[in-house]
């Protein structure tokens, strides 16, 4: 089990290898990708920042909760900070489990909790040169 902030590209294949576990029959994953359009504006990238120490503590707590609820410790969560261009991943989650349903449930639990609890912020940069802090629950639906 590992959860943390990274400042490089997220390599989902590597995360999958990391959680791969003998006896497990299911690997579920989620990647959040920077969208080219948000709230009708053309986006070039998102500058993610975090309160690193607290973010890693919360992410680790969420992973531990998922491990306990869904009975697998084959969990890895990475959130990237810094400038992430359109089409690149900002977050990657992989869960391996003996069975498929809890693997998918755990992935969903982790992304939903991460969105509401982990101190990470995004500043969207737009094609017109402007930028704006994005708060969850405002503007267009978020991924």
């Amino acid at each position: 089990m590992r959860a943390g902030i990274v400042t490089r590209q997220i390599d989902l294949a590597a995360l999958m290898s990391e959680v791969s576990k003998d006896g497990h029959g299911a690997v579920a994953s989620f990647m959040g990708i920077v969208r080219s359009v948000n709230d009708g504006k053309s986006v070039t990238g998102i500058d993610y920042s975090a309160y690193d120490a607290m973010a890693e503590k919360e992410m680790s707590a969420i992973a531990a909760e998922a491990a306990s609820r869904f009975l697998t410790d084959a969990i890895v969560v990475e959130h990237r900070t810094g400038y992430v261009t359109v089409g690149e991943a900002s977050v990657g989650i992989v869960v391996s489990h003996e069975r498929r349903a809890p693997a998918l449930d755990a992935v969903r639990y982790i992304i939903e909790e991460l969105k509401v609890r982990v101190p990470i912020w995004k500043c969207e940069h737009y094609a017109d040169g402007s930028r704006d802090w994005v708060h969850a629950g405002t503007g267009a639906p978020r991924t």
Partner: protein
Amino acid sequence: MTITVQLFASYAEVLGAKSIQIELPESATVKALMAAVSKFPGANRLPPHPLVAVNLSYANQDVVLKAGDEVALIPPVAGG
């Protein structure tokens, strides 16, 4: 005691600093801290009750602070 308050994202912009120092009596609460923060230039652009973290955990208004605590204001989160 002096409490250092870390600021992030839009709050750092609004207050024009990555952190601010607040002088408080011993055993002051988070509520007292926020009253002091509200006197800083730009603090009028903070929401009415910003989230506060003490030692990496979300803390309510009644939490009592002590010297050396790691304190931060937490803007609405937007990870993912």
